[in-house]
């Protein structure tokens, strides 16, 4: 038995027939070939799979594809501008060495973008608390926190965010 799920992913309408047990992350990775979203655990702890569903950060391993039917999904592949210019959060991660092996990075960036959406001027403590659901084994979080704070500053300036 399969279900037909339809949604918008990174601005494009998509429709796929999937098994009911298919998770959103598996729809993205295996059916749509969007391998930027990663799977790092099986208990919804690590946050490597965070994407945006209707603008809010969601662990895509914790949501059935069927639950995202009709939604607008943005993955790490859809964050940069069409010409390849990095989103201010991506740029800040690059500028502050906020990534090493890169595996947690897509989830970390997508989560951080949602933080700044909900709290445009977070303190270091607020950044650390928000990112509690994203595990990084490489950076010790030091440069990730720096990056998020720098990106928040950039994103508060409307001209620079264009």
């Amino acid at each position, binding site marked *: 038995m399969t279900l037909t799920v339809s949604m918008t992913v990174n601005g494009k309408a998509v429709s796929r027939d999937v098994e009911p047990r298919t998770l959103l992350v598996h729809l993205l990775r295996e059916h749509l070939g969007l391998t930027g*979203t990663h799977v790092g655990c099986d208990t919804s702890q690590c946050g490597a799979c965070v994407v945006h569903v209707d603008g809010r950060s969601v662990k895509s391993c914790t949501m059935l594809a069927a639950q995202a039917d009709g939604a607008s999904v943005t993955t*790490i592949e859809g964050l940069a501008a069409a010409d390849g210019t990095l989103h201010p959060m991506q740029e800040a991660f690059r500028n502050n*060495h906020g990534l090493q092996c*890169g*595996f947690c990075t897509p989830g970390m960036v997508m989560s951080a973008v949602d933080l700044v959406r909900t709290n445009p001027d977070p303190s270091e403590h607020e950044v650390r608390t928000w990112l509690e659901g994203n595990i990084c084994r490489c950076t*010790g979080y030091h440069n990730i926190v720096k990056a998020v704070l720098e990106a928040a500053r950039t994103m508060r300036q409307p001209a620079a965010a264009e």
Partner: protein
Amino acid sequence: MTTDGIGAPLRRKEDYRFLTGRGNYTDDINRPGQAYAVFVRSPIAHGRIRSVDTADAAAVPGVLTVLTGADVAADGLGGLICGWMIHSKDGSAMKAGAHPVLAQDKVRYVGDHVALVVAETQAAARDAAELVAVGYDELPAVADTAGARGASSAVHDEIADNTCYQWELGDQAATDAAFAGAAHVTTLDLVNNRLIPNAIEPRAAIGDYDRGSDSFTLYTTSQNPHVHRLVLSAFVGIAPEHKLRVVAPDVGGGFGSKIFIYAEETACLWASKRVGRPVKWTADRSESFLADAHGRDHVTRAELAIGADGRFLALRAHTTANLGAYLSTFSSCVPTYLYAPLLSGQYKIPAIHAAVDGVYTTTAPVDAYRGAGRPEATYVVERLVEVAARELKMDPAELRRRNFVQPADYPYQTPVIMTYDCGDYEASLDKALDLADYAGFAARRADAAARGKRRGIGFSAYIEACGIAPSAAVGSLGAGVGLWESGSIRFTPTGTVVVHTGSHSHGQGHETTFAQLIASHLGVEPGNVEVVHGDTAQTPFGMGTYGSRSLAVGGSALVKAADKIVAKGRKIAAHLMEAAEADIAFADGKFTVAGTDKEKSIQEIAFAAYVPHNFPGDLEPGLEETAFYDPVNFTFPAGTQICEVEVDPDTGVVEIVNFVAVDDFGVVVNPMIVEGQVHGGIAQGVGQALCENAVYDTGSGQLVTGSYMDYRMPRADDLPSFKVGLTVTPNPSNPLGVKGCGEAGAIAAPAAVMNAVTDAIGQEIQMPATAERVWRALAAAPMAAE
């Protein structure tokens, strides 16, 4: 001339692909016709396999095959090996129990590999794996490190006392004599807690057999693809080495756990030929917890003998090291030659003796994890020194200072193998004291006490031996491999550069650092240098990345290759500019003729080498050189960390309020990347000290901490921002003057944190100092009110 060469905090070349979801990790790769593998794992710690019934599993729609230990035996597949021979103190060889790819007669830990299901989809393979019926006659678990030698049950039937080796290093008689005459002896019983590496990318593999060429390709999460190929060919017998290609694409962190050759990737290759399809396996995190090689797990009694003048006289340690159920690829050397030779620390200690019992238990194999033996040694030395200072009522910085090896002492021969070649330990200590505002600590402690909190401060003046390693030296100690590295530099006709390295980057940023290195040496822009690694079909044979060796050994190989490029370029330039070769100088990417204004850029020389219309008659065309570099010594990064904590006695929660690290890594190529390595290492060390702990139930042998729900990883809100600084003594033992930075944080931090915690609570406590343990300790023995 580039300004982005050695010393520049150049932004990383690899970041764009990682930040835009365009990385290429093993699980992102899919091969045409690919099938999926799922392992049937032992649910019990120890037992004899009575029966394996695969009929129901094989009947599941989509299942291609179900393979068991009987198939491994029938195909004559070799076992997994340990590449370092250790001899016991009585001269006997270590006892290595057989390590089959799939279990034969017994299972020896929860997660041991019993069978392999290959199916059209992962879901079908998973469903079928549930239906493989295995009958076991259960045997007692052996899960306790300290009790393994006396356990009633033998993990390997032929090794009755569960002892792989009883090894020693150092002069026991001289050490005992020094203890007999000591004014003071400090004694500690220390547990170095077991850790699970937890790279965020789980291990994965695709075995891909091509019948047309009768050759295999393995895509896998490896830190050392050539070593994988060598072992899989020479020992497991998958294929002759030239018929096996190993590709380690983007790898999402390793920390040691992806050095080793495991059953899973081996089985995928083997199964691929049997089913005639590519076979892919990707670990669940649960499998990573069960079956990745774990780290640490030492139980140690350690003693330090001190004279009346506060000088160290001798150190001795007796360690029981848990090796797990089987010897993993390099496990035997970790608690021996990577551990005891570091027990001299930064100090002059005239006599040292270490005895290590390596034991088998019914737990996952234990092998190298970030630091590998050196964190355990640093924990012994730096906990002893800190506690000794407390017992002697001396300032812990002063006690260290009094015993440091001094700059005038180099080369300094320790009593335990190592010859330290350079360093300035007081310089790092002084800078750390300044960054930590040590002078202001007493006031901060008083302020905390007034708020009902306990403040503590702790030091860790670590040294490590890395840049492993001189091949002849490690060979004499039992290593089955040489630990040199390779590199090649290939100019294109248009003057850009492709660099191949036998090192492997899985987060360390080689694509940037090595490009900077080549840019500095050859006067090209880093943007015109592409670094290729991780594919046995592309790079010269290399030993890979671990032991903080990539720059010191792999980078040195590239410097040698660059020297060869310049030497050949000089001949070409002399010919083109009609000058004597001796008159040609090379600097900033230009060959010049002394005393003239004639010059040729290295790009012009490269073009001439590939379009050799006007070329020296005795010279081969082309501009491409390969070099192999075997180091002459280990490198000895060293420094001081200072940790300050505040403990809430009502809850036991330990908060790190300040963390300082000052390191001497020799010459630094990219300070941004180096600082990042330090940050990550500290976080892993803090994790060990405060929260991470792999726990096996001693009765059942079950892994109690089998997920992120139970195994406490450090999160962003557990850690502070760190204060890091550098001192520099250029390393005289390699052409770059570098030492290596990848492990220092993890090596030093556990001792710094635990010295701070025990200072705060006024009593000894074992790692991890969780809130519960601290609260219980304070409840049992409350401190006197200050």
